[in-house]
């Protein structure tokens, strides 16, 4: 459907920004994501899974990326990683893909409407949350390499 296509495009743009395609000319890199269960924040979950898959496969990356979803509630509070119910009740849902070098924004998508200030606040909150996710990546990789 259209939603899936839109998600594919957003994922593709994010991956193309970090994967060093220069090292693999004339090569197609296919990323397949299978949704096992959806409890909200699906796009940022897909982004995190895509990054871990690229790490695991050993593709050369210029930086890591992670996805963070923010839900703006009607009273103005910002909720990170909303559940499906919270997303529906929210005034606006924003998803950001944050890169690991300098916390740059690689992709931003919004559903609903919000003011520019609110978007900046959500972005700042997402950048702070990205630190936790990158630390999780580091711990996972450390655990994997500690076994060998």
């Amino acid at each position, binding site marked *: 459907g259209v939603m899936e296509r839109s998600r594919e495009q957003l994922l593709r743009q994010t991956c193309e920004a970090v994967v*060093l395609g220069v090292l693999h000319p004339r090569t197609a890199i296919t990323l397949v994501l299978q949704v096992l269960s959806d409890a909200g924040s699906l796009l940022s979950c897909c982004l995190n899974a895509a990054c871990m898959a690229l790490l695991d496969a050993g593709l*050369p990356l*210029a930086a890591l990326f992670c996805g963070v979803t923010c839900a703006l509630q009607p009273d103005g509070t910002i909720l990170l990683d909303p559940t499906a119910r919270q997303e529906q009740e929210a005034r606006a849902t924003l998803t950001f893909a944050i890169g690991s070098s*300098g*916390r740059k924004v690689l992709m931003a998508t919004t559903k609903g409407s919000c003011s520019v200030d609110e978007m900046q606040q959500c972005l700042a909150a997402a950048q702070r949350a990205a630190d936790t996710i990158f630390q999780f990546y580091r711990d996972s990789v450390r655990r994997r390499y500690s076994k060998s």
Partner: protein
Amino acid sequence: MAAERGRAAEALVGQVVLPGDLLLLPAHYDEDAEGERLRLSTGAAPQGRLLCGPGLRRSGAGLLVTKCGLLRHRPGGGGAFWVDSQQKRYVPVKGDHVIGIVTAKAGDVFRLDVGGSEPASLSYLAFEGATKRNRPNVQVGDLIYGQFLVANKDMEPEMVCIDSSGRSSGMGIIGQDGFLFKVSLGLIRKLLAPKCEIIQELSQLYPFELVLGMNGRIWVKAKTVQQTLIIVNILEACEYMTAEQRKQALAKLSGT
């Protein structure tokens, strides 16, 4: 936007590094790097020439990590840094010895599947003692152990079964029977390390022939089919077993 702090490369040796990490080189490397930038010819390797191995790319004054893994360092000969990463997919590298499967014969050239993104080509003259009259007997489906003569991202990889002096030194067509299977590249590197315990312990069990390809392929042949399969299972399981578990498994097998 917070600037990315680079960490000293030598402080991170032996630790896990992730893509995007910036490694700073110590000052004396930079001095020689200055001198190198002015030099136009390569000439003899200067004292401080640093080798940037797999998983690393030069970026400004430091090294950018592009793969996740353990950072390794070799101090001899100017120093070398590389990232020891585990992956299953092979990317052809010049000089690697690999096992290829012949998929087609196109005129004077064989097409081999080596597990990379493109099939490799192997000329029929690249065998020891091969001439235009004396062609090697290679059929589709045969296994060939050879090394890469040309392997870069821009060209189709080319393999040969002779070394630079024209001798085969163990390369060529792998014989009949035996069993070919695939493991991860990290396990192959472990098995190829000098004094590998796994190979020594296995050789105490049964006599067998073993060919290890850097593309993750292993060919095993023992006296009977059952012995071959036992060795295959142990090698595949070695990836996840610790040393004690492996010793226990081998003790059980040699006991029965």
